[in-house]
């Protein structure tokens, strides 16, 4: 396989406890740490491993977002990606338009695989990979926990509600990854220096000729209903008594 495309989204870091603004207009992201979406990092790690064992020749990382997303692309390059493309937009891009933009890149780059995170941990949509595959008319293997490549096919183990499902797909295909696929490598300082010299191509999203979708308007952001702190009991007997009193156990 010639090429793998990996999507990297810039999101609020996994460890940041997000807060809704008091006027309900959004979530407070001022000054918080931003990172690569953790699922996307796993996607990139997998692509790098595939290239390192000789099953692909090039890994291209792509992000759609503000110019700040260059930081995440640079991190991706430091991890080992060969080059990066930023489709720059000051506005947030809806999943369908993001999928259409990915399709344009796919048509240019002709990858054998597109590997994406199964969801981004900001909007938790879990849509874009399936949409890319649908628009492209190619297979999708979502929620992957194991990927094997041979003879122009991928055999993918998927984490599903029933357990582990294995499917076989013809390449090219879209794979979205789950948490247990691999453990992403740490970036080393010399790699960060090297990454600065790798190509990062920035293009205006608006030049792609995609009409972004304005169908959805978020009218309100609210904090979730809080569960109140309950009672502490001293021993197992009191616990069982409390559950019996509530009628939860006999």
């Amino acid at each position, binding site marked *: 396989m010639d090429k793998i495309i990996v999507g990297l989204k810039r999101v609020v870091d996994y460890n940041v*406890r997000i*807060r*809704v603004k008091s006027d309900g207009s959004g*979530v407070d992201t001022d000054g918080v740490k931003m990172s690569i979406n953790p699922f996307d990092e796993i996607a990139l790690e997998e692509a790098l491993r595939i290239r390192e064992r000789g099953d692909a020749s090039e890994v291209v990382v792509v992000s759609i977002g503000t110019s700040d997303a260059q930081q995440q692309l640079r991190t991706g390059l430091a991890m080992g990606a060969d080059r990066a493309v930023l489709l720059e937009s000051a506005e947030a891009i809806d*999943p*369908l338009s993001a*999928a259409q933009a990915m399709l344009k890149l796919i048509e240019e780059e002709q990858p054998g695989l597109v590997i994406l995170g*199964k969801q981004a*941990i900001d909007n*938790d949509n*879990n*849509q*874009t990979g*399936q*949409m*890319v595959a*649908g*628009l492209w008319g190619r*297979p*999708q293997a*979502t*929620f992957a*926990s194991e990927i094997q490549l041979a003879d122009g096919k991928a*055999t993918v183990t998927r984490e*599903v*509600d*029933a*357990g*582990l*499902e*294995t*499917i*076989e*797909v*013809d390449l090219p295909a879209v794979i979205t990854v*789950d*948490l*247990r696929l691999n453990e992403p490598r740490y970036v080393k300082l010399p790699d960060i220096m090297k990454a600065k010299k790798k190509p990062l191509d920035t293009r205006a999203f608006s030049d792609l000729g995609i009409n972004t979708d304005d*169908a*959805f308007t*978020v*009218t309100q*952001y*609210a*904090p*979730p209903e*809080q*569960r109140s*702190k*309950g*009672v*502490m*009991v001293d*021993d*197992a007997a009191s*616990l*069982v008594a409390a*559950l019996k009193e509530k009628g*939860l*156990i006999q």
Partner: protein
Amino acid sequence: MTQTLIIAEHDGTTLNPATAKCVACASDLPDTTITVVVIGSDIADVAASAATLEGVSKVLSIDSAANDKPLAAVFAPQVASVAGDYDYVFGPSTTFGKDLMPRVAALLGVNQISDIMAVTGAREFQRPIYAGNAITTVSVKPDYKIVATVRAASYKAVGEQAAVAVEAITSDAALPDHTRFVSVQSGATDRPDLQTAAKVVSGGRALGSEEAFSIIYGLADKLTAAVGASRAAVDAGYVPNELQVGQTGKIIAPELYMAFGISGAIQHLTGIKDAGTIVAINKDEDAPIFEIADIGLVGDLFTVIPEIEAAL
């Protein structure tokens, strides 16, 4: 009057309870007629059971050998081919629905609303973002087909009704052969299903090993409860992935949730916040799970569990 289409989930013989929860969600829409479509192979029984879900007006059955396994690439064009007449197209927010529905949405040229937790108007819905740390209200512009997944834990299954008609239809959509089912490996047991169980006993990293986790199974069996686990316990290999509860695992709403040795990362709490009563047992009195537990007990689970069993 609007038209709603619900994509049934099933395993070939039994309707998944998430389908009845999608019907419950659709029933909250003002003035809508609900149709359920069942796609599969040899699915007369499943279609018949969908026909008895309260509030359903009609069941469509697309029964074909090609539909033997629920492959999104195969199902999506068929759903898209029948979705034309509908204002709403809903599926469950299970791995089946999450895999299928966005592909359907793309084929229909629309975005999807993921994880509806409440219907607040004919074209207005609530959904969680940031692992449930914020709830958004999303308004959809007029004349835009609403494709959505329904967060099952937010709904109670509808009851039963006298069966309505089942109409067998065929789809003329071209079906791809680029995606093939190989196998499914399932730890299916006689225990209640984690997603629908009234009681769940869950274990975390503190269990320490696969062997030690048997203490959780033992208590679960005594309580006729399902078994769950934190991501840490699954990552460590103590239990299979299908037992994971949380943002990226299963979102559940049992009447009783008992967490043993689970510290309570926000991603885990996201999966249980609709539970009726949450019980937490942890050695660390500062564990975040105590902040949301209805009943907490500081102690070593390996001593507490035998004591609980003795007190039952």
